[in-house]
Structures are given as structure tokens and as C-alpha cells.
């Protein structure tokens, strides 16, 4: 079994928060300020960025901020939903303050000194852990992994579907520090009947009493994977409050909702977890592809699990300009859920030919994303689209349109970036 490599910077930073010199804070501040400037300078991307009531102009979201978070794209304030603009995703590790937020209910205040995790159900004995016990009794590992909301890319489904209209920024890649869930499960003595886990957090629904708090789960095989973590740090810092402070699950390669935030309880079950967030049409996709817009019975759907292969162009940004005859680096990321990315290709003729292979950099960890880049010299002035698609090690290639489903999940359509080429 391959050990999960430690992320040196994350380990070093463990207690660096109070000791960090001022100059570093200032540097971070200046970087953020520059990002803010970049965000505005490339503002054409966001249309009405800065206005909250975007309905009057178009579908482009406004911007919103939350304490401890950078100004991000507003996908709703109650519950808080923030999308990271692509302008801020052009780095291998997404900083905590730029990381997207997808919430269903409240953002709970959790006191880490009284926080407890209860693991019960199909176990020989119930396990109850304080934060100190969690860190002391189990091996602490750090792993870089992509976290992507199941609905990332929902805005591109035709006909349009229900839910937050995420474009491409409900995603980030971070170094997660925590303990392996399988070590905790084994310490409780897993019974043979265990087939699924159901996870619960400290958050409440926005209509308590009527609507249950958000709760999802995963099959026991994924729970026992060495990469499924009970995490207490993100990029060497406390996990930001809206991202699940103090402890959250990380189920890498799978839809983000599987990674329960503000984790307090794991119920080991002898059957599939069956809260309202697991049944009906919630976080479920058709077992077989269906016609776009068609109605589908819940029994013809299955739980959304791992993400299919996907890629994104982080530079140049949509709507930016380049110059004919001058070399330009096109770059971005590719990732593939439970698979590895095999190749990334670009097309400059609207998908007719894909003979421009990008240079692929190895991913930091199994579930981290791959950096890719391609040097390109536009030859003639005018409107140009850059298309990118990735292929995984099982031969799956990103489609021009993602398989339509009523929830708009697992949207992995190829990314098309329009740019203007000046003479």
C-alpha cells in the first residue's frame, strides 16, 4: 500500500500561525491585493461584477465576500455559496481564502475544545474522539486533492436545470491534513454487515424541524480507501469556517458533497444511506444517458460518486486579447476522479482537429490535479476559440456536452475559451 506523501510546507506551517513574521503577512496581503487588481482588470469575464442585482443585465453573478474569504462570485448569501473566479484558480494550490464555498444550511460555530466525533453503528464498539485524541491516536497524513462540487458546470446544461448555476469555479485543490477514516473505523471493529457510512455535521438546515440537516454518505469501500481522510487542516492552516472548521471529511475524486463538513458523527450502516440528500433526485444521476430535458423516475437514477475526466483553461482568460505572431502560453489543469489523466489536447478549429498535445506535469498526489501547458503562436487576427479536452487512463475523453441530467451534476463538457487576436 503506497504511503500518502507528506506535504512539507503543510507540516512546517502547523504551528506557524502566531509565529509567522509580519513581512510574510504583508507579502500575502500584497498578493491578495494584486489578485484583487487582476480580478478587476480582467473584469470583462464577469460582466456585471460588483453589482448584486445582476438579474437586470444578464445571468452573470455579482461578487460577495465573507470574513476570512477573498471577494468571490456570489451564488447566494443564505445559504452562503461562493464561486472562485477562474482568474484566481491559476495556481496548483488554491489558497484557503479563495476556495469555493457550497453550503446547504447554517455555518455553525464549533468550539474545538468541546468538539467530538462519534462513530457508531455496525461496529463492535462505538468510538468517541476529541480533537486531541484524533491527532494523538491515529497517524496524521497530508494529501493534496481536488475538491469539486457535484454541480460545478451546471450553468452549461441545455435545457437549463435547477440549482446553483455554478460555472467552472466550484472547485479547488488543497493540501489536506488529517487521519485516515479507515484507521478510525478499524479501531471500532468493523462488522461484516457494514456496507455504507452516513455522515452528519454540526450545521443545521435553514428551516429546522421541517428540513433535516444536510447529511450524505459513501460506500464502505471508499470509506476504507487510504485517501479518505478526517481532515483538520487545509493548506497547513485551520480549515476556514465556511469550509468545515474544525473537522471535515475529505473523499477525494468524488463529488464535493460526499466530504461532509463540520463532521460530528459517522453512522456505519448495513444499507445505503437514505437521507433526503441521498434519495429521489438529490445528488443522483441517470443510470443510463437520457435525452436532454426528459423526465426520469427516481428508480432509474443512482447516487453521484466519482467525477469523470475534466479540464480547464486558466490562462488566457475568456475574453482576453493576444497578439498575432507572438507566442503565448496556454495553461490550465486536468483531473479525472478515480482515474489518472493520460493526455490533454487543444483544438484551434472548433474541435475539428485535436492535434495539439499539451505538456502534462505529474500531479502532486493521486487526487491532485495535473498542471498542463501549451505554447501557441496565433497566426491571424480576429476572434479565436481555444478548446481543451482531457482523456483518462481508461480512455474516457471529455465530451463536447456533458450527459444531461435533471440535477445538472458531473458537468464535464470541454472548456472553450474565446480570445481576441490583435494584428
Amino acid at each position, binding site marked *: 500500500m503506497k504511503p500518502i506523501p507528506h506535504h512539507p510546507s503543510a507540516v512546517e506551517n502547523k504551528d506557524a500561525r502566531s509565529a509567522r513574521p509580519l513581512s510574510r503577512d504583508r507579502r500575502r496581503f500584497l498578493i491578495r491585493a494584486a489578485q*484583487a487588481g487582476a480580478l*478587476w482588470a480582467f473584469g470583462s469575464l464577469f460582466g456585471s461584477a460588483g453589482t448584486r442585482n445582476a438579474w437586470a443585465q444578464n*445571468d452573470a453573478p455579482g461578487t460577495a465576500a465573507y470574513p476570512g474569504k*477573498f471577494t468571490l462570485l456570489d451564488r447566494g448569501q443564505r445559504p452562503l455559496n461562493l464561486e472562485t473566479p477562474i482568474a484566481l484558480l491559476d495556481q496548483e494550490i488554491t489558497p484557503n481564502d479563495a476556495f469555493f464555498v457550497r453550503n446547504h444550511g447554517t455555518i455553525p460555530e464549533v468550539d474545538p475544545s468541546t468538539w467530538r466525533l462519534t462513530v457508531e453503528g455496525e461496529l463492535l464498539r462505538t468510538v468517541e474522539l476529541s480533537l486531541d485524541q484524533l491527532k494523538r491516536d491515529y497517524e496524521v497524513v497530508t494529501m493534496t486533492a481536488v475538491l469539486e462540487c457535484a454541480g460545478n458546470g451546471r450553468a452549461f446544461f441545455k435545457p437549463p436545470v435547477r440549482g446553483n448555476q455554478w460555472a467552472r469555479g466550484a472547485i479547488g485543490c488543497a493540501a489536506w491534513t488529517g487521519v485516515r477514516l479507515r484507521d478510525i473505523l478499524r479501531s471500532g471493529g468493523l462488522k461484516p454487515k457494514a456496507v455504507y457510512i452516513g455522515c452528519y455535521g454540526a450545521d443545521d438546515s435553514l428551516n429546522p424541524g421541517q428540513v433535516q440537516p444536510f447529511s450524505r454518505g459513501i460506500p464502505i469501500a471508499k470509506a476504507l480507501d487510504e485517501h479518505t481522510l478526517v481532515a483538520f487542516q487545509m493548506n497547513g492552516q485551520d480549515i476556514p469556517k465556511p469550509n468545515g472548521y474544525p473537522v471535515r471529511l475529505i473523499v477525494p475524486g468524488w463529488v464535493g458533497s460526499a466530504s461532509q463538513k463540520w463532521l460530528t458523527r459517522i453512522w456505519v450502516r448495513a444499507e445505503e444511506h437514505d437521507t433526503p440528500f441521498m434519495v429521489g433526485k438529490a445528488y443522483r444521476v441517470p443510470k443510463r444517458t437520457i435525452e436532454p430535458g426528459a423526465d426520469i423516475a427516481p428508480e432509474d437514477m443512482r447516487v453521484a460518486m466519482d467525477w469523470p475526466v475534466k479540464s480547464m483553461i486558466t490562462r488566457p482568460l475568456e475574453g482576453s486579447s493576444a497578439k498575432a505572431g507572438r507566442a503565448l502560453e496556454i495553461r490550465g489543469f486536468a483531473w479525472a476522479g478515480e482515474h489518472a489523466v493520460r493526455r490533454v489536447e487543444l483544438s484551434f478549429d472548433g474541435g475539428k482537429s485535436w492535434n495539439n498535445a499539451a505538456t502534462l506535469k505529474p500531479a502532486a498526489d493521486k487526487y491532485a490535479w495535473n498542471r498542463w501547458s501549451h505554447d501557441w503562436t496565433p497566426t491571424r487576427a480576429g476572434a479565436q476559440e481555444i478548446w481543451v479536452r482531457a482523456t483518462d487512463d481508461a480512455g474516457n475523453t471529455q465530451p463536447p456536452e456533458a450527459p444531461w441530467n435533471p440535477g445538472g451534476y458531473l458537468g464535464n463538457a470541454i472548456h472553450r475559451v474565446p480570445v481576441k487576436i490583435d494584428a
Partner: protein
Amino acid sequence: MTALLAARFGTRRRSLVAGFALGLLLCFVVHGGAHAQPAPEPPYTLPDGEGRDLVQFHCAICHDLGIVRQQRLSERIWNEVLNDMKKNGAVFTDEQRAAILDYLAKHFRP
């Protein structure tokens, strides 16, 4: 021609620098620095029209209206949404429900 290109290039670079600086300034003026406080929701966040006040009242009890504003759905799907919201505890009469559905299907259609 060369002079013209040089001038254009110069202007573009200056405007880029100016845009960047203005961007920085705006971020601090508008948002009070990189880490801003959440802005209060503006009083009217939905387009005017018959049924707007019902939507504002019934829907905003549990959630803000950002989720309404960003969706463009057919009447069939809005109807499905209202069924689910009723299960989630939304309380409205049949007449109110019909008015809400009309408003959503008219103002937030694909």
C-alpha cells in the same frame, strides 16, 4: 504606421496599468480591503411584476433570493421546485402558489 502602433501599444499599456491601479483602489473602496464584511441584501432583488412580493415573502423566509435570480427554468421545472419547497415547509394557499408559479415562469424562463 510604426508610430501609430507604438502609440497604440503605449496607450494600451498605460490603460492596463491604470486599470490595474483602479482595480486595486476600487477593491479597497468598495469592499474595504481584500477581506470584506458581507454586504446587506438590497431591498429589491427581483424584477418588478405581479407576484413579486409573494415570492419575496414566501421564498426569502428560508433562503435568500440569489438562488431564484440565477435560475432560468421552464414552468414544469418551477412547478417541481414549488412542490419540493412545500415539502420543505413553505406555506402558501393554492392562489398564492399559482401567482408565485406565474411570476417565476414569466420572469425566470430559459
